[in-house]
């Protein structure tokens, strides 16, 4: 099998070389210009990368750490640069590798150019641990020269959940294998979040800062053609607009969205959604294309409402009018869930009782649920409690746990009818637990002292109690502010 593996690799290599051999060595200036054109506003970062990798004759540093916020172009720029410099590189994403074995195998197979074929599993390198990994890597390097190759590892933060010291080993891959292989790490978090500083060799770091508002505007302006297509696809009557019109729109759009979001991918998505709405008055002949003030006035409330669905990716249909309704619908979908949920009559009361038990202090039970309770005397303690700050409200602290007895007591107190205590009730409690509306706190073995917590929020329980015609606010001690 080993022999077969070698010949396959060799075959692949010769084919790879024939491709590379025919092309001239990449022109650095050309690559630089081209990359800057593809990725505007990143010239500083591109320069740093190119400086490290520009010449194949010169050695690369053994590890580079690239970090920065989401969608700042880290991975794509690295890929673009390495590809255009014609460097032999392998790019993997840790998200794809759920175990370290998986990681090793993917790296090895990508370096040797092997694939898994569905019918024929061979040849495919198997690798269990780091020792085998270094051995195999050396073996591959003896066939294909891996010196001057680059290994790019994306989402490195996931490495912390994998084998201990794996990051350490990857940082030192050059030392461990003796191959001058450069490892580029890509991540969103700071390097110091990985290990204590003293315990690891620091790589060379490159930071990708988030785009500024002006830069975002410039980048999004490049979507002008796409926006035109969008209009053509969505309206029967084509609207002809120029770049300044689109620029104005983006300006309006960013003035609302920039404070909440700097993520380019998300902004692009939202701008696409909103651009149709922006153009809708023109389509219906209510406005002319030059009347930017009226357009803006139309748009401002729409943008505000669509800001509420940021990151939520509400499904949008083509017609512009329905967007708003749909987003509203989405926001109230939880309420709908509560309505559509078909719980038995008593189970609903049990759920309400559980909510009351979780969010009311025990000492208030007597006052809230007994018909003929004594008038509570006001003590200094009570006055002090009245003035307690909002941070200590039960709504803010989350549910408290309660015993099964208390749940039953409250259940009988809020239910008008007499109902016998029987198995059916007990079963309903356990089915509420099953549905994750209640969480058991104590372990299952104790039959008597079972403790629970209520796992639903106020909106949910409010909907349910409305359906039953039950006024829940009357029985809550801390909810006056809601």
């Amino acid at each position: 099998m080993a022999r077969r593996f070698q010949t396959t690799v060799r075959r692949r290599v010769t084919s790879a070389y024939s491709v590379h051999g025919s092309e001239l060595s990449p022109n650095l200036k050309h690559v630089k210009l081209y990359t800057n054109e593809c990725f505007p506003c990143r010239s500083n970062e591109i320069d740093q990368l190119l400086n490290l990798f520009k010449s194949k004759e010169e050695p690369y540093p053994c590890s580079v750490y690239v970090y920065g916020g989401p969608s700042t172009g880290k991975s794509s720029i690295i890929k673009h640069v390495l590809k255009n410099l014609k460097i032999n590189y392998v790019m993997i994403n840790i998200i794809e590798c759920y175990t370290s074995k998986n990681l090793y195998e993917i790296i090895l197979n990508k370096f040797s150019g092997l694939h898994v074929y569905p019918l024929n599993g061979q040849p495919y390198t198997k690798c269990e641990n780091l020792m085998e990994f270094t051995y195999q890597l050396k073996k591959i390097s003896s066939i294909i020269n891996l010196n001057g190759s680059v290994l790019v590892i994306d989402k490195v933060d996931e490495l912390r959940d994998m084998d201990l010291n794996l990051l350490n080993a990857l940082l030192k891959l050059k030392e461990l294998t003796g191959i001058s292989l450069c490892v580029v790490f890509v991540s969103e978090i700071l390097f110091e979040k990985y290990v204590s500083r003293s315990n690891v060799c620091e790589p060379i770091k490159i930071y990708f800062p988030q785009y500024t508002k002006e830069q975002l505007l410039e980048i999004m302006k490049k979507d002008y053609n796409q926006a035109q297509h969008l209009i053509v696809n969505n309206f029967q009557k084509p609207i002809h607009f120029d770049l300044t019109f689109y620029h104005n729109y983006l300006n309006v759009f960013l003035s609302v969205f920039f404070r909440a979001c700097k993520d380019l991918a998300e902004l692009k998505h939202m701008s696409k959604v909103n651009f149709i709405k922006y153009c809708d008055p023109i389509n219906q002949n209510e406005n002319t294309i030059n009347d930017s003030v009226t357009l803006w006035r139309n748009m401002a409330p729409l943008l505000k409402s669509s800001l509420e669905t940021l990151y939520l990716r509400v499904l949008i249909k083509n017609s512009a009018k329905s967007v708003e309704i749909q987003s509203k619908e989405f926001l109230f979908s939880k309420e709908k869930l509560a309505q559509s949920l078909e719980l038995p009559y008593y189970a609903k009361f049990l759920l309400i009782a559980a909510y009351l038990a979780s969010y009311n202090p025990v000492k208030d039970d007597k006052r809230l649920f007994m018909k003929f309770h004594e008038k509570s005397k006001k003590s200094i303690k009570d006055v002090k409690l009245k003035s307690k700050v909002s941070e200590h409200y039960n709504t803010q602290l989350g549910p408290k746990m309660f015993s099964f007895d208390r749940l039953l007591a409250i259940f009988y107190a809020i239910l008008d009818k007499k109902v016998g205590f029987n198995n059916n009730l007990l079963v309903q409690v356990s089915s509420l637990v099953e549905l994750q509306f209640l969480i058991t706190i104590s372990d299952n073995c104790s039959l008597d002292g079972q403790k629970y917590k209520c796992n639903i929020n106020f909106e949910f329980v409010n909907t349910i109690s409305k359906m039953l015609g039950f006024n829940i606010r009357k029985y809550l001690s801390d909810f006056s502010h809601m």
Partner: protein
Amino acid sequence: MSTPSSDVQKIRCYLKNQLINNTQFIGHDREKKQIFDLLKRTITHGESNSALLIGPRGAGKTTLVNNVLQELKDLKYFDSDAILVELHGLVHTDDRMALKSATTQMNLDNAVDGKVFGTFAENLAFLLACLRTGEKHTSKSIIFIIEEFDLFCNHHNQTLLYNLFDVSQSAQAPICVLGITCRLDVIELLEKRVKSRFSHRQFFLFPGQEDENKSNLDLYLEKIEYYLKLPGSLKISAASKKAWNSNLEDIMNEKKFKNILQRIIDIDLSVHTLKNILIRIVVTLNENRSSLSIEQFQEQLNILEKDETVQVLQDLTCLELCLIIAIKHHMEIYDTQPNFEMILTRYTKFANANSNMQITQRNVVMKAFEHIEKLELISKISGNKTQKEYQPFSLLVTPQQISEAIKKSHGLPTEVVQWANSSFA
């Protein structure tokens, strides 16, 4: 005076090689000599030994040992008298693997093939016996270089270490065990029975303690000169070489440069950091910039001193920054760890007071909250299993960092800046 671009390229290539592929160790002559003598005694006299080489990361421990081994390999009797076994704590993650690798490195795969061993010790004893050819001085000596020695201490029962030290004590076969580690407390990690078999010979490799007559700055300058000075053998025109070297000398003599270096030394003394700084400077050399300048070093010092967390905070959106501020205020006022509900209430109170802040939708705020959690600016307090909204969080950035980030970032609404400075919204 300009250097031709081909020369610049050659200079850059040479310097990069010098910095990245260099295996020459400089300084610490005493330790180097001691280790060399120790290993040599094992080879020539068949003396068994064990020792530890301890020093911080990036101090050049591995480079030193590799240098020593290279010198030993140059001796003509090395091949016939000694076998080198290199084990690495990161690679050989358990004793079984380490032994397998050792067998391969001793070229004993054939001898072991098909044999069944009862214990680990038997296996190791067999390996050593294979190498013994009778009398003590005629048998081959084995040198075990154990890198990341501390990781071997975590192995089950420390079997490998126990056996190796045991052999080195009891004159079975001449072996020398040299452990390399960066943990100063490594002796404490050893079990009692292992510790008692260790010779307690330790070498320490701390940067900046090499010579009592010279200051750290001088040593650092020497290293820079070693890395950056062009030798006579480099094939470029004499003029550009001279220009480079004289420029280097000029820079090194300047007071400002020395001040910068002193700052760097105060932060981090290791060779690794120095190399990283020099690499970053050297790679920027090109046709337009063919010589070094003090500004480049100043820039690197600034990078070294810069607080990266502030940078990350600056990159946050206004909404995320507001949440961070809200958490900060909460912790200042109540001295407890807030959860999402509390932060949302505090933020909503602020946003309602200022019409400029438009975002109050719960879901959007939740997303922003999740984002700052993902960036690890805040972290969940473990051991608290409740709903996401009620999970307490702690802030991982300091108030100073927040106020610095707010000072530096532009375009923030004035209300936010004011709010950051005082909790009265």
